[in-house]
Each structure stands twice: as C-alpha cells, then as structure tokens.
C-alpha cells in the first residue's frame, strides 16, 4: 500500500481548507490537501453572489472568484503544497496516527502526517414529510450544484423551504437562471438570513411566508405541488392547508457539521445547538483536544465562508507553529480581531454564544 508523508494534512479543499493550507505553507510547512471532489474550492465554486464582510474577507467579490483567488495563492506556494483531488479520507487510526484515504475507487492509501487540519465542512439537514422521496425534492446544495456547476436548472417552478441565507440566495440564483420561485416558507416568525438578501427576492415578487411549513409533497411519480400550512407559536397548524403548484421542492433547512473524522480521532466533542450539531472543543488556535489535530470552517460550527477562511488561516498557522516554524503571535491576534468583528452583529449573536461554549482556555497536555 502506498504511504504518503507530509508535515500538514489538510482534509477538505473548501474555503477553510485552502486558507489553512495557504497559511501553513506560507509559514514553510509542506502541505497535502485531500479533496473528495474533482476540483478545489468547496461550496465557493457555486456561490455566484457577492460576499459580505470587509476587504480582507473579499467583500463585494463573488464566491467563485474567491475560490480562484485562493487557488492562485495555493499555486504560488510552489512545491510546498500537494493536492489530491477525487480522494476521500476514510479513517484515522489514533495509535499509529495514520490517515487512510481512497483515491477514486481504485486506490486505498495511507497518509502519515505530522499534523492535521480537518476542514471537512458540513452536510445538509433535511426535514421529513410524506412523499419526500419522489423526484423533484432537492436539497439546496444539489440545486446549486446542478445550476451553477453543471448549468442545469432543476425545474420550472420551485417551492423553497427555509429563509436562511442559503434559502434566500438559492432562490435569487434560481430566478437568475430563469426559474420561477413560487414562495419561500419559513417556520420561524422572521427570516433567518440577512434582511438584504430577503429584500432582493421580495422586490422581484417572491412571497416569503413566515410561520409556514410544508405538510407533504404532491405527485405520483414526480413532484407536481406541495401542501403547506401556517404555524402558531407552538408550531401547530392554524387555518386551512393550502396547495402550491410546483415541480421542485427545495430544502434549505440548515446544515450540520461533517464531524465523523473528529469523532474517530477521539477529539472531545460537545453538542452545541447554536453551532448546529456536535462540534469539537477547541482552543483559540482552533486546536482540538487531540494535540495533532486542528479544525476550521463549518466542521467547527456552521457559519459563513468569510469566517471559515479566517479560521483556516488560524488553524494553518497553529499547525505550522506546533511544527516549529517561526510564527509571530501577533499574526493570530490580527485574525482573532477579524473573527470577532465578523461575529459582532445581530446575526452573529448565536455564533458568539456557541463559540464561547465550545472554546477552552488551553489544553492541559500543552500546559
């Protein structure tokens, strides 16, 4: 079996992983990025909207353009960064500190890293409702991939479930692709995403029905509509069930961290609802309770890509510093300030509480 050695293994080539790789390689470490997809960039490649944040977080730049910028930065690290695409990490063996991975469906190999940054991202949540297994029911991520990676629209008329940023942004992108959005349903009494994203779709005529949910998908072989209903404060139905005609039902009801590798590695985990699932405890440098493992991005708690990129920088620096590379402590400070600023608004309130709950002052074994 082939065995690869590296200073820093970065699991996941999305915004967090690429940022971690760039900062670790920038500090002098050799880095191996392992990415399951056929290209780097993660969810950024599907993001056709302009990012928020400040200049440092590429504010005003479209997500797929940010992916290009990060890929160029990685390319400029010359031979210090190796990239393996179409490769999925399948396990971590604690005793030997060995990672196993599958290249395509052909080769199974061992990776022996000195340090690891896990930036495995998140997976979509789905909500159960009768008939949700017929063609036409999609996760929002799949809709974005179909449209923005492969240039295929999912249908002609979409019912969006969820008015968080993903539901709002994907609705807007559907309209850009010429698809009608029948309505956006949101079970809560207010939108979860940015108000301006909601205003963008509202002024194009899309209703956002607050306190509404889906009851069932209608259709024999494919989706032809959906039954929807209004909710009271206790999420019980009020009023009559209504029917919305649509050929696509798109679920944008949240994400949860892809954390299996961290469980395997024995990292201390905690269930933190504000971070949308089980997340590893971490110190300020994004190090887990396993002294060889750092994390960054959605796997550490669901948040915007802007924050994921800063966490990646921090984790990459942390791993490089632990390897003995010369890292000025002020560099961390600058990133901490940027993270703090990003999280200071009203939408960041839950993130702040969640991160506080997941952060430890320091790990005893390092003391």
């Amino acid at each position: 079996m082939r065995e690869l050695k590296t200073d820093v293994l970065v699991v996941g080539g999305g915004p967090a992983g690429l940022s971690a790789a760039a900062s670790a390689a920038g500090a002098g470490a050799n880095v191996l990025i392992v990415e399951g997809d056929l290209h780097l960039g993660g969810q950024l490649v599907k993001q056709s909207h302009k990012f928020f944040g400040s200049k440092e977080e590429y504010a005003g730049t479209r997500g797929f353009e940010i992916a290009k910028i990060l890929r160029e930065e990685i390319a400029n690290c010359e031979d210090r960064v190796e990239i393996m695409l179409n490769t999925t990490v399948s396990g971590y063996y604690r005793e030997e500190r060995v990672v196993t991975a599958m290249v395509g469906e052909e080769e199974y190999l061992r990776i022996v890293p000195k340090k690891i940054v896990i930036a495995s991202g998140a997976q979509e949540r789905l909500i159960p409702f009768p008939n949700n297994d017929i063609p036409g029911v999609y996760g929002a991520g799949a809709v974005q991939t179909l449209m923005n990676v492969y240039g295929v629209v999912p249908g002609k008329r979409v019912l969006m479930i969820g008015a968080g940023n993903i539901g709002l942004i994907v609705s807007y992108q559907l309209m850009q692709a010429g698809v009608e959005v029948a309505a956006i349903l949101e079970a809560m009494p207010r939108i979860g995403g940015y108000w301006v994203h909601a205003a963008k779709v509202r002024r194009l005529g899309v209703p956002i029905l607050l306190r509404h949910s889906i009851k069932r998908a209608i259709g024999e072989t494919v989706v032809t509509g959906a039954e929807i209903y209004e909710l009271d404060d206790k999420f019980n139905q009020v009023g009559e069930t209504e029917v919305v005609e649509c050929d696509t039902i798109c679920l944008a009801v949240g994400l949860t961290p892809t954390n299996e590798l961290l469980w395997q590695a024995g990292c201390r985990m905690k269930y933190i609802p504000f971070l949308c699932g089980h997340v590893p405890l971490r110190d300020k440098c994004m190090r887990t309770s396993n002294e060889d493992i750092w994390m960054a991005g959605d796997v550490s708690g669901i948040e915007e890509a802007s924050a994921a990129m800063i966490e990646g920088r921090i984790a990459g620096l942390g791993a490089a510093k632990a390897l003995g590379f010369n890292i000025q402590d002020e560099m961390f400070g600058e990133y901490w300030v940027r993270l703090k600023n990003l999280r200071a608004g009203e939408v960041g309130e839950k993130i702040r509480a969640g991160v506080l709950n997941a952060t430890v002052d320091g790990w005893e074994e390092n003391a």
Partner: protein
Amino acid sequence: MKVSAIFESGVLTEERPGAVSPPEALWKSHKGGLVIVECPQRIPCNPCNTSCPTGAITEFADINDVPAINYDKCTGCALCVARCPGLACFVADLTFGEGMALMKLPYEMLPLPTKGKTVKCLGRTGEVVCEGKVENVAEPLRDRTRVVHVSVPIDKVSDVRAIKVV
C-alpha cells in the same frame, strides 16, 4: 400580515436606522442624484463605505454598523449601487426634468435591458409601480452587476426598487 411581520420578511415599511431618505431640499436641487440605502440590519459588511470615492458613506466604527451617510458629499455616482453585495443601494436624481426622476438601480437578471426601451418598475414586494424608460445600462465594476438608469415619474421614487424587462 402585521407591519412588523412584513418587515421581518424583507420589506421596508418605514424609515429606520440604515434606511433613511436623503434630506428633501438638497435632494430636489442636487444634480446627479443622491443615494438611498436600505440596509436596516446590523451585519458585518462595509463595501458601500470602501467603494465610496467621496467619503459620503462614512467610515464604520464597527463593521456591523448600518450605513450612515453624509449627503453633502454624495455625488450620486452609484459606485455603491454596483458594489453593495446586498443590492441595497439606489440612487435617485430628482433634477432629471419634466416631473421625471432618474433612478440608478442594481440589476443582475436576464434579459438585459436596452437603452431607450420601456421596462416595468417594481416596488418592494414586486408589484408593478409604473413603467420606466431605460436611459443607460452601465457596468461600473465590470463584474456583471449592471446599474440601470431608468426615468420614472418623480412621485414613484420612494416606491421603485427594481425593474423587470418585458
């Protein structure tokens, strides 16, 4: 729906911090127009400020602040219209003449409008407010966000926030 519920679904129902109209007297006489920003939620974002060439959108003490505008410095250049990731900046020039105003609106849809054509002008819930004539289609940042210059009756300025090409 109650007014607060309408606001919570993304529709501005009244002026609030981050979403105020320019001062009327200055607005009526200012050639080139003044910016209208509708960004009433504290989110971490400041490209309106960093893209403003005159400092009319004042510097943010905290990046989560809602935009504050010094209208004396605004030239109506609409760079913020092109740059704002939330498509929350608009410009209205009330000096266009003959009861008409020139609005500069962000546009990221297809088909593209063409100069001289008539388009539908939409309000904050997508309702058709009036028709407007396309006076210019600019792409200031060459990033596919167009700034469409459209002339509308002056009394529709407070309602028109988007166009639909028909």
